[in-house]
């Protein structure tokens, strides 16, 4: 109880807007929302023959990328200390692998070949809460975990590593009401998502993409 009061005083000093009792950090937060994953370059690789001098003769070139995708995510956050939380989260994103084919030796017109891709991640992250500004609750996050990528129809499934470095903010719409939605916030976050392994092109095994997430937070 003493500890809770100390938090409250601290909060008032920093923000000076919301009542002290309303700025206590929930012990548990559950977030559900949507994810927009930006496109990422996956590398270039050429189909080549070798001439008698061991030099490449290009049959065609490919430039590969993973297109912008969207999906959903769920997060469970547990408070460790005042400013520190640990989060366990899962995301599912639907996107496309794209391969732009150019430079055909027999002058086939360029085209882009695609296949659907599902990206599933399960990550554990450490969250650090920055100073609050009234109902605005900014934070930074770093974490990593397991990546699974499946092409459409689950014809191909591979595993890899997924990591994130991000910054975001929650806006607490309600912080002291009764019932399940007594503590309710909107969460917005910008991430740098790093993926290693999974379905790869050429020698580029690591991919980095900007990712944006918006969710509804229920605190307890």
């Amino acid at each position, binding site marked *: 109880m003493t500890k809770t009061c100390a938090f409250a005083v601290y909060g008032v000093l920093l923000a000076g807007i919301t009542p002290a009792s309303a700025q206590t950090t929930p012990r548990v937060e559950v977030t559900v929302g949507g994810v927009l994953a930006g496109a990422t370059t996956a590398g270039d*690789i*050429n*189909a*080549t*023959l*070798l*001439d*008698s001098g*061991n030099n*490449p*003769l290009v*049959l*065609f070139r*490919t430039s*590969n990328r993973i297109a912008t995708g969207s999906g959903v995510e769920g997060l469970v956050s547990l408070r460790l200390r005042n400013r520190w939380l640990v989060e366990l989260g899962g995301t599912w994103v639907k996107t496309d*692998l794209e*391969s732009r*084919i150019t430079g*055909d*030796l*027999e002058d*086939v017109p360029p*085209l882009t*070949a*695609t*296949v659907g891709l599902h990206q599933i991640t399960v990550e554990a992250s450490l969250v650090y809460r920055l100073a609050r500004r009234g109902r605005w609750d900014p934070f930074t996050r770093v974490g990593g975990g397991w990546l699974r990528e499946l*092409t459409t*129809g689950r*014809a*191909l*499934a*591979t595993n890899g590593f997924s990591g994130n470095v991000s910054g975001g903010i929650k806006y607490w719409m309600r912080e002291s009401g009764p019932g399940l939605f007594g503590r309710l916030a909107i969460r917005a976050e910008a991430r740098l998502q790093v993926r290693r392994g999974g*379905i*790869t*092109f*050429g020698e580029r095994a690591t991919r980095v993409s900007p990712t944006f997430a918006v969710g509804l937070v229920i605190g307890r």
Partner: protein
Amino acid sequence: MNRHLARIVLVCSLVLGAASGTQAYLKLGFLTPNGVIGLRWTRPVEYFVTNRDSQDVTASQLQAAVGRAFASWTSVPHVGATHAFRGFSSAEPFVSDGVSVIGFRARPELERTLAAATFEIDEVTGQILESDIFFNTAFRWSVASAGQTERFDLESVGLHEVGHLLGLGHSGLGETELRETGGRRVLGKRAVMFPIAYPAGNIEDRTLEADDRAAIADVYGGSAAQRETGTIRGRVTLGGAGIFGAHVTAFNTRTGDLIGGFTLTTNGDFVIASLSPGVYVVRVEPLDDADIDSFFDEEPVVTVNFRPTYYPMLVTVPRGGSGPAVTIAVSAK
């Protein structure tokens, strides 16, 4: 069961520019009313080497080069074929005598043929009973480790011929151009089993390429290879009808490997096996600038009147299976 033996004088020769490129490996086989029967050894390959030195190479050097060639093929992962050198012999290659003999022969009338292989097979099972290889002494040969100007590398040509001996046909994974003096010159290739050799002095064909490894694994890989690799299946159509003899190439977007196959039915069906799991670009092209006899020697007629075409989707190959079948519609030239 009575064996029906057949002596096949092959198109399986490595030449100085008599054919041109497609993009595929091809297993040797023959059509029966019940389908295609592939050729393969079902017992260890026991072979003899002729005991005569040639102008450039001793019998021992020939035996060593052939031994390295066998080792290259049989060391491909999952390949179950084995081989054993049984000694030097005075027997001639290309003689039907029940033993497999590898050696030099003077065949000056075959002015573009560096070497060739023949088979004796069981026509019911496709089992290879005997296979001989000859190297044409009309050409100069070398076993120098770095190659030798104006001489053909015995190990490189031997690797190609031993591929035939094991049951592989020609790969089309190469591009050529016509020479003013006749025949064709290799612009580039990516398979030891391409039917046209690099110029004299070159030793690049001492190393198997992905197309070669896929081919031998397809014949001798057994269930282990099937578990670890995958397959692309599909059909090539022109005006809605299947076409025979179209070359289909699968390009692995991670490794850069090129591996191919042909449509081998009049329905236009193809299968490319022994592919590493991954994402592939699939391209189909006609055998329009090739000596078709280097690949097919019987009906049906190979269709060549269509434009090279990419399958508009990337194709995924799972481990131990195949993705959805693809249909590639091509248009007439």
